[in-house]
C-alpha cells in the first residue's frame, strides 16, 4: 500500500455527469463519415435530433482515505455508471474524477481470465491487469490459492472451473493485491454462506488496515453494517450524502412508504 496521508481525499468527483445518447449507439458508416467530416471542417453540429439520457447528473463528493461508503439507489439510478466512471472504464461527459492510489474492482470477478490457462497463471494475468507486476505476487500467491479454496485445482485450466470456483479465484486475487481503494458491486454473492462470511471478514480486516471501500448493494443490512457513510442516487442525481443511518432511513422510507416520485433536492454545497 502506497503511503497516502489520511487527511487528503482519495477520491474526488466534481460535477460528474454522464450522458448516453442514441446516436452513440448507432453504428453506421455514413454517421461515422459525417462525424469525421464535421470534425475535419470544424463545423458546429446542427440541430440535435438525438434521444438523450443522463445516467449521472452533477454528482459531486469527496471521499477521504480509509472511509467506507455505501452507494444506494434503485435500479437504473446510475450506481454502476458512477463506478465505471471512477474506475476509468468510461469518461464523464462533463466534470472531473480524480482517484489517487491503486484500486481493485470487485465488479466482474475473474474478468479477463484466459480460459485455456491454469488458475495459477491467471492469477498473474489478473494481477497484471490491475497493475501489479509478478514479482510482487510471489509472497502472496499461496495465500491467494488458499483463500480461494482451490487446492489441487489451481493448475487446471480455468474453463474447467465451476462458476463458484471462478468467482472465488477472482475475489481472492483482488483482495490480496493490497489495493488502496476497492470498488465492490454486489460482491457478496460469491460462493456458499461460509465463503461469504470469509469475504466479509476479509473486507473488514482490510478496512482496519486503512482500505478505502466503495460498496454498491441492494442489501441494506450490509450497508448499515459496513459503511461509515452512504450516498443515495436517484435517476442519476444525488439525493442525499451523509451518515449511513440517516441516509438509509430516508432511502428506505422512499422505497417502502411513498409511491410518489421524490423530487431531487440540491445537495448542500452546490
Amino acid at each position, binding site marked *: 500500500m502506497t503511503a497516502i496521508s489520511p487527511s487528503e481525499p482519495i477520491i474526488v468527483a466534481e460535477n460528474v455527469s454522464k450522458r*448516453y445518447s442514441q446516436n*452513440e*449507439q448507432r*453504428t*453506421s*458508416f455514413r*454517421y*461515422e463519415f459525417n462525424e469525421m467530416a464535421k470534425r475535419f471542417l470544424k463545423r458546429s453540429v446542427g440541430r440535435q435530433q438525438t434521444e438523450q439520457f443522463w445516467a449521472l447528473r452533477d454528482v459531486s463528493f469527496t471521499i477521504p482515505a480509509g472511509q467506507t461508503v455505501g452507494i444506494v439507489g434503485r435500479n437504473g439510478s446510475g450506481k454502476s455508471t458512477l463506478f*465505471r466512471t471512477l*474506475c*476509468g*472504464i*468510461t*469518461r464523464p461527459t462533463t466534470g472531473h474524477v480524480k482517484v489517487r492510489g491503486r484500486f481493485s*474492482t470487485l*465488479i*466482474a470477478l475473474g*474478468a*479477463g481470465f*484466459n*480460459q*485455456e*490457462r491454469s488458475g495459477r*497463471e491467471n492469477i*498473474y*494475468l489478473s494481477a*497484471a*491487469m*490491475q*497493475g501489479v*507486476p*509478478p514479482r510482487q505476487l510471489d509472497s502472496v500467491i499461496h495465500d491467494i490459492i488458499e483463500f480461494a479454496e482451490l487446492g489441487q485445482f489451481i493448475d487446471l485450466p480455468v474453463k474447467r472451473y465451476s462458476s463458484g470456483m471462478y468467482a472465488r479465484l477472482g475475489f481472492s486475487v483482488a483482495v490480496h493485491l493490497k489495493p488502496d481503494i476497492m470498488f465492490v458491486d454486489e460482491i457478496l454473492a460469491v460462493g456458499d454462506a461460509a465463503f461469504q462470511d470469509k469475504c466479509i471478514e476479509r473486507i473488514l480486516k482490510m478496512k482496519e488496515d486503512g482500505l478505502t471501500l466503495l460498496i454498491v448493494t441492494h442489501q441494506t443490512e450490509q450497508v448499515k453494517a459496513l459503511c461509515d457513510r452512504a450516498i443515495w442516487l436517484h435517476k442519476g442525481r444525488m439525493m442525499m450524502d451523509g451518515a449511513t443511518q440517516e441516509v438509509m432511513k430516508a432511502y428506505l422510507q422512499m422505497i417502502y412508504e411513498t409511491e410518489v416520485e421524490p423530487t431531487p433536492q440540491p445537495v448542500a454545497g452546490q
Partner: protein
Amino acid sequence: MVALLVGANLVAVQTRLKYTYGKPLGDDYQAHPISLYILMLFSILVANFIIWIVIRVGLKLTVAIRQLIILWLATGILVGLATLFIPTLSQLQLGYFAAAALLFSPCITVIPALWRGSDGEPVSVHLAKLWNYRVLLIIWLRFNVLSRYSQATLGIFWIILLPLSTSLVLAFVFSRFLRVGVTSEGVPFVTFFLAALVPWTLFQQGITKGSTSVFSQIGLINQVYFPREILVLITLGEALVDVFFMFLAMLVINGVSGVWPNWLYIYLPMLILIQALFMAGLMLFLGSLSVIVRDIPQLIGVLMQLLFYLSPILYPASLIPHRYRFILAINPLVPLFQAYRDIIVYAQTPDFATLYFPLVVSVIVLFMGYVYFKSREDGFADRL
C-alpha cells in the same frame, strides 16, 4: 498540423516517384566525407528549432521544453547514426536524406509533443501509462500464443509446422504449377517468392486480426480498465511471433534450395521495425474504427486480396510496365518487400534511399492512428 503531415507525405511521394525500382547499386555510388553528416545533423536541429519557436510563439502552448529538446537531440542523432551505418551512399542520396530528415523529424518530435489527449494530458503521460502495463502485455501475449496451440497433440510444434507446411504448399504450387510468365530473375522461384511472402503474411495477419482486436474484447472493455492500445499491440505481437517461426521455416526451405543466410540479415530488424510501425498505426486506426463500423473486417479481407496481387510478391517489380509504376510508388510496402528480397535472395545491400518513403509513411500513419485511437478510446465502453 494535418496539413504539415500531408505535406510531408506528398513531398516524400513526389521524390519517391523519381526513383526506379530494384536498381542495384552502381559505380556512381561512393563514400562521402564525415563533414556532410555533421552539416546534416546541424541543419535538422536548426530546422526543428525554428519550427518549434514558430509553433510555441504562435500558439502560446505550454510544452515540456526539456522533454522536447531531448526528443530533438535523440531524433537528430538517431538519423545521423542511421546514415553512418549505411555503407555506400551517393551524394545525391545523401542530399535526399537530408532534405527528407528536415521534414521528417519535426513530424515525429514537435507535433506529437504538442498533441493533447481528450483528458488534456500530453502524449508522454499516455505512453507512461502504457509502459506501466508492459507486464500485462507480455503475460497476455505469452498466454495467447501458448493457449492457441496447447490443445493440439503436437502442441507448440504447430507454431513451426504450420508456417512450414503453408510455405511449402504455396511455394510448390507457385513454382511448379503457376509459373506462367513469371520470371524470378535467375534465382530459385521458391526463395524469390518466400522472401516477400513472409513479410506479406506478417502484414496481412496483423491487419486482419488487428481490425477485430478491440470489439472482440467487448466484455473486458466494459469491466476492467487498462490502456486499450494493449489489445492492438497484443495482436501485433502475436503476428510477429507467428511470422518469426514462418521466417525460420523459410530459412530451412531456402537452405534446401541452396540459398544460405548472409551477414546482411542484420538489416532485417530495421525493416521489420518500419513495417511494425506502419502496421501498428493501421491497426490502431482500423481497430477503433471497426468498433463503430462493423463491416471493416470484411472490407479488409477484400482489400488484402487486391493488395496481394498489386504488390510485387509473386512477380518482380521490374515486370510492371512503366506506365503503371505509380501504383508501386504509392504503396509503402513495395520498397520494404524489395529490400527484404535484396537481402534474403540476392545478398546485396538494399537501396536505403527507397526506404525513406515507407519510414515516413509509417511514422505518420502510426501517429495519426494513435491520435484517432485515443480520441475514440473513451467511447469504446459506451458503444460496445
